[in-house]
């Protein structure tokens, strides 16, 4: 399994979901690394790999967005015919844009 290409496909799938974007680290990527791919962890195990994708929410509510993401991510796995046992989408943060404020402030 080409992990890097798989991670890129997953990141691209998440980026296409309205209301989600990959939790890409800030700053310039050193030495040409694929920075976006760091939003994905692929853990290989005896029964198949586990995949963790970290994303930021830019819209609410989450449940319909997550359902859409599930379909897109499972399609990536199916297209590559990879032995993935478990896939987890982690919504790690929420952008102020989700509340209609670019720089959210409670006051």
């Amino acid at each position, binding site marked *: 399994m080409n992990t890097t290409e798989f991670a890129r496909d997953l990141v691209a799938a998440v980026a296409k979901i309205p209301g989600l974007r990959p939790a*890409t680290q800030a700053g310039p990527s050193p030495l040409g690394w694929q920075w976006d791919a760091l939003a994905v962890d692929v853990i290989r195990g005896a029964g198949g790999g586990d995949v963790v994708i970290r994303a*930021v929410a830019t819209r609410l*509510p989450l449940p319909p967005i997550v359902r859409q993401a599930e379909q897109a991510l499972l399609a990536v796995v199916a297209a590559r015919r990879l032995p993935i046992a*478990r896939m987890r989408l982690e919504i790690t943060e929420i952008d102020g844009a989700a509340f209609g404020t670019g720089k*959210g*402030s409670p006051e």
Partner: protein
Amino acid sequence: MDRGTSDARDTGRAPLFEYVVSSSVVAAVAVHAAVAVPGVLRVEPGLTGLVGSVVRTARQRIKGLEPAPTEGARVEFVRADTVRVEVDVVISGQDQATAVGHALQRAVAGAVSEATGLTVAEVGVSVLDIIWD
């Protein structure tokens, strides 16, 4: 984090899909709901919340993110799909504190449930100050 699970296995090949929502997300939803409650002047962190805020800021380095504020709200996952939320607020003296508190509990519980799909077991409200206009 909360965990929601969707078993997408088909003929045993499709992976098990699950999603989790971080406490930061829940807290941001809670804060946004709280400040909109009539009688709530602002949400602000107590001493415990200040420490948590520093940790979150240090950890938060995601490209292009304008993180929604979470200061003043604390989240605990009591089960995989259930949270307890606490909010620290400053309220106006023009309104009855208990009425504001009850309204805030309803607003936060409803907002978190709708936004995340989580069950809200409890919303605790701490009134840090009352400002008389």
